[in-house]
C-alpha cells in the first residue's frame, strides 16, 4: 500500500465521518430545539388552561357559596317575615280588638282615657301596617311574584312610612326580567345600600333609580347625607371595616357586573350597580 493511497483512505474516512457527524449533529440539534420549544409552548398553554380552570372553579365555588348564602338569608328572612305577619301581626290585631272592646265596655270613660285608648289603637294600627310592609319586603316571594321594581317601591314606601326620610324612585327604559335569582340579589344589595344610608348617612332623601338599557341594567341608590371618604374607608383595617361595601362589590362581581361607590364628605353617597344584560347567576 503506497503512502499516498493510504493517506487518501484516511482522508476520505475522516471527511466521511465528519460529514455524518455534522449532519447528525445539525439534525439532532434542530430536533432538540424543536422539542424544547414545543414543550415550552405546550407547558405555558397548559398552565394557562389550568389557571383558567382554577379561576372558573373558584368562580363557580363563589357563586355556589353566594347562592347558599342567599338561600339561607332568604329562608331566614322569610321565616322572620312569616313570624312578623302571623305571630306579631296577629298579636297586634288582638291588642287592637282588646282596645276596641275596652272602648265599647266603657261607653263614657274619661276623655283623657278615651283619648289615650284612641291614640294607642292608632299607634298599634300603624305598627301593624309597618310590620306587614316589613314582612312583605323581607319575603323574597314578593320579588318572585311581582319582580324587582315593585319590591323596591314597597321597600321605599316602608321607609317613607317611618316618616324620617323622604324617598324617590325613578325608573327608565322598558322593564325586562333579569332572572329570579339576580333580582333577589339586586334587591338585597339595594336594601343593604339603603340600610347604610339610614344608619350612617344622616340623609334627608334617598333616591333609588333603575335603568333598563338594551345592553345593561343599572341600579342606583343615592342619598344626600354626610358622605364619607372612600380612601379612608378602604384603608381601614379589616376588623374595623364594615363588610357592607365589600359585600356589594363581591355580589356585583358574581353577577358579572360592577359596583361603583361614589361618595364625598358632605356631598352624599351614590352606589351604582351595573349589570350586563342577560347575565344571570
Amino acid at each position, binding site marked *: 500500500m503506497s503512502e499516498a493511497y493510504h493517506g487518501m483512505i484516511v482522508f476520505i474516512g*475522516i471527511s*466521511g465521518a465528519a460529514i455524518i*457527524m455534522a449532519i*447528525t449533529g445539525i439534525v439532532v*440539534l434542530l430536533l*432538540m430545539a424543536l422539542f424544547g420549544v414545543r*414543550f415550552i409552548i405546550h407547558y405555558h398553554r*397548559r*398552565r394557562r388552561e389550568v389557571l383558567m380552570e382554577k379561576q372558573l372553579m373558584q368562580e363557580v365555588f363563589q357563586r355556589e357559596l353566594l347562592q347558599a348564602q342567599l338561600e339561607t338569608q332568604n329562608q331566614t328572612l322569610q321565616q322572620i317575615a312569616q313570624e312578623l305577619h302571623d305571630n306579631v301581626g296577629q298579636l297586634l290585631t288582638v291588642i287592637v280588638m282588646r282596645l276596641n272592646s275596652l272602648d265599647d265596655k266603657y261607653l263614657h270613660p274619661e276623655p283623657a282615657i278615651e283619648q289615650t285608648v284612641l291614640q294607642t289603637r292608632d299607634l298599634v294600627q300603624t305598627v301593624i301596617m309597618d310590620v306587614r310592609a316589613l314582612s312583605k319586603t323581607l319575603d323574597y316571594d314578593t320579588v318572585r311574584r311581582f319582580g324587582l321594581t315593585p319590591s323596591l317601591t314597597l321597600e321605599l314606601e316602608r321607609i317613607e312610612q317611618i316618616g324620617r326620610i323622604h324617598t324617590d324612585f325613578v325608573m327608565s327604559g322598558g322593564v325586562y326580567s333579569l332572572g329570579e335569582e339576580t333580582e333577589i340579589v339586586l334587591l338585597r344589595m339595594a336594601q343593604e345600600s339603603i340600610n347604610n344610608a339610614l344608619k350612617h348617612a344622616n340623609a334627608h332623601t334617598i333616591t333609588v333609580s333603575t335603568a333598563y338599557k338594551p345592553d345593561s341594567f343599572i341600579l342606583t341608590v343615592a342619598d344626600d347625607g354626610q358622605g364619607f371618604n372612600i380612601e379612608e374607608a378602604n384603608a381601614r383595617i379589616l376588623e374595623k371595616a364594615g363588610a357592607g361595601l365589600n359585600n356589594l362589590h363581591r355580589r356585583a362581581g358574581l353577577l358579572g357586573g360592577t359596583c361603583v361607590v361614589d361618595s364625598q364628605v358632605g356631598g352624599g353617597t351614590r352606589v351604582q350597580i351595573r349589570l350586563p344584560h342577560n347575565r344571570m347567576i
Partner: protein
Amino acid sequence: MIDWLIQLSIIDKIYLSLAFVTTAAILVNWNRLDPNLKILILYPLALFASGYPYASKFKPFFPNDTRVLNQEDDYYNSLIVIQLNLSIPFSVISYAILAIFFYQTFIQKSIQTRVLASIPLFWFLSKVNTYSTGTWEPVNNFSTLFNIVESVFVIYCCFVYFRELLNHDKQYRPEKDRTFWVVVSLLFYFIGNFFITGLLNYAGLTDEDLARNAAYIGYTFSYLFYSVLILVCFINFPLNNYE
C-alpha cells in the same frame, strides 16, 4: 503515562476535550449552579477516572478488525470512548450519577425514592448481566442489552421529569431553567444511544462501515450533550425560573 491519550483518535480527543471543558465550566460556575447540576461534574470525572485503567486494554473497536492499530492513523484506531461507554462498570457508575441528578431534580418524594431505589436495582442487573455472559448475547459481542436498559431507565426519568413539570403548581419558566435544557439533552443523548447501541452488534457482524458510522453518530450525541452542559453553565438567565 499519557501515551494512551496521544494514541486516541481525533474523535475521542474531541470527546475528552469536551468532557474536560464541561468539568471546567461546572467548576467555574460552581456558585451559581443548582445542586443537581453540580452532581453532573462526576460524569466526565468518572469517565477520566475509568478511562485510564481501560486504556491498558486498548484494542480494535471491532473484534474482527484485522487492521493493526497505528498511532499515526486516526481512522483505524479503537474508538476507546464508545468502548468505555459500553462497559458495564462505567454504565453502573454513570447511571448512579444520573440517578442522583434526577433524585435532586424531582420534587415528589415517591418519585425520588423510586429513582434512588433504581440504583441498587441497576447494579443488580449489571451483576445478572455479568454472570449470564453468553446467555443472551454472544461473548464476542458488546454488552448492548445492559446499555439499552440504562437508556430506557434514563429516558423514563426524563419523561417523569417532564410530567412533573406539567403537573407543577408553582409559576415556573422551563425556558429559564438550566435543568430543563440539560434534561432535554439527556433525553436525546439516551434516545440516540438506545438505537445506536441496539444496532452495534448486528452492524458489527454484517457491515462494519455501518457500525462505524453508527458509532460516529453516537459520538455526535455525546458532543451535543456536553455542549449543552457547557452552554447552560455559561448562559446567564436574566430572571429566576420561578416567578
